[in-house]
């Protein structure tokens, strides 16, 4: 990205936008969670993001990785439910990928490290009806758009948001096999997963923030412009 000062400004703006969005959707997220969970996702995440804002005070001169690490640490200390270790722990772990600043390459590494920690900590796979169902297609689409399709980061992020949205829709028809919803068995079917939903809100706000700083097409969907190579193994190298 640009100079460190613009980078900091963009990161702070992104955090503020995410916090405002979570505050606005607090009731909706908690409603989703009362259908299939313990009815605290909206309030927990909102409390966590308010604590993030507090913890970031005085960090205006910090480097990108430290800002993002602070976000993760605040979430994990403040949120008593699963979103603390999942959002917070994964963000903390992935923040080290931004040690040399925010670039197309470092954000791909961040996204991959986030997903890796998320799956390691929560033990969920795609199809378990958790935030993994939203994060996985977003991360895969972002990585492929940058590394294979050479798209500008803003367009790659727009595609990732669309992929995430499809992942959120996918959770509706699934029977939960991880998290509190799994105790409900078949009763969990027909409800949208709250964690997947908040993931989409976060990514939508990151995209909205990035639009102010980057050039690129955001009127796009997750479908790929490329025709798959005959030799997918070779193409991945």
């Amino acid at each position, binding site marked *: 990205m640009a100079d460190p000062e613009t980078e900091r400004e963009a990161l702070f703006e992104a955090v503020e936008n995410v916090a405002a969005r979570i505050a606005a959707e607090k009731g909706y997220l908690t409603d989703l969670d009362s259908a299939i969970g*313990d009815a*605290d996702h909206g309030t*927990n995440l909102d409390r966590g993001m308010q604590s993030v804002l507090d913890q970031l005070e005085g960090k205006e001169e910090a480097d990108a990785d430290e800002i993002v690490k602070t976000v993760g640490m605040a979430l*994990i*200390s*403040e*949120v*008593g*439910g*699963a979103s*603390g*270790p*999942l959002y917070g*722990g994964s963000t903390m772990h992935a923040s080290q990928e931004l040690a040399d600043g925010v670039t197309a390459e470092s954000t791909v590494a961040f996204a991959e490290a986030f997903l890796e920690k998320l799956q390691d*900590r*929560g033990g969920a796979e795609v199809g378990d009806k958790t935030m993994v169902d939203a994060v996985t297609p977003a991360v895969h689409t972002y990585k492929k758009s940058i590394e294979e399709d050479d798209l500008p980061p803003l367009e790659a992020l727009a595609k990732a948001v669309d992929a995430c949205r499809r992942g959120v829709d996918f959770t509706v028809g699934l029977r939960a096999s*991880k*998290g*509190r919803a799994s105790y409900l068995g078949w009763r969990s079917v027909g409800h949208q997963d709250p964690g997947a939903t908040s993931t989409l809100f976060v990514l939508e706000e990151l995209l909205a923030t990035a639009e102010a700083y980057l050039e690129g097409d955001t009127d796009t969907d997750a479908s790929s412009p490329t025709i798959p190579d005959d030799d997918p193994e070779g193409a991945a190298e």
Partner: protein
Amino acid sequence: MVGLLVVSHSADAARGVRDIALEMGGADARIRAVGGDVDGGIGTSVTDIQSALSDLLAEAEGVVVIADLGSAVMNAEHAIEALGVEDSVVVADAPILEGALNAAVAAASPSATLESVREMAEEAANTSKV
């Protein structure tokens, strides 16, 4: 000496499980209980888990953690990583009450090790009640 840490979403539940386990663990048992989120509501707090682990490790060479639901386990795992005590603290994959009871009995043995206590806790998953 192997210590035990009971982690529940409810502070009351954690204390209750500890009290029941203490009956089996003898006078020297080192068992702590943490539960509730930072506001005392239902949930768990990484900070509380970390300080309980530090206290236990001051008087025991290892600690077996027995937790209730998902985020209690995740927060315990995070606390272990944050403290860098992966070699001396393990999370048992065990039902919280029966696991804590078994672990308290195992920890009272003079030859108890981190592994023997964890194994006994995990065997509780196979306990038949009726």
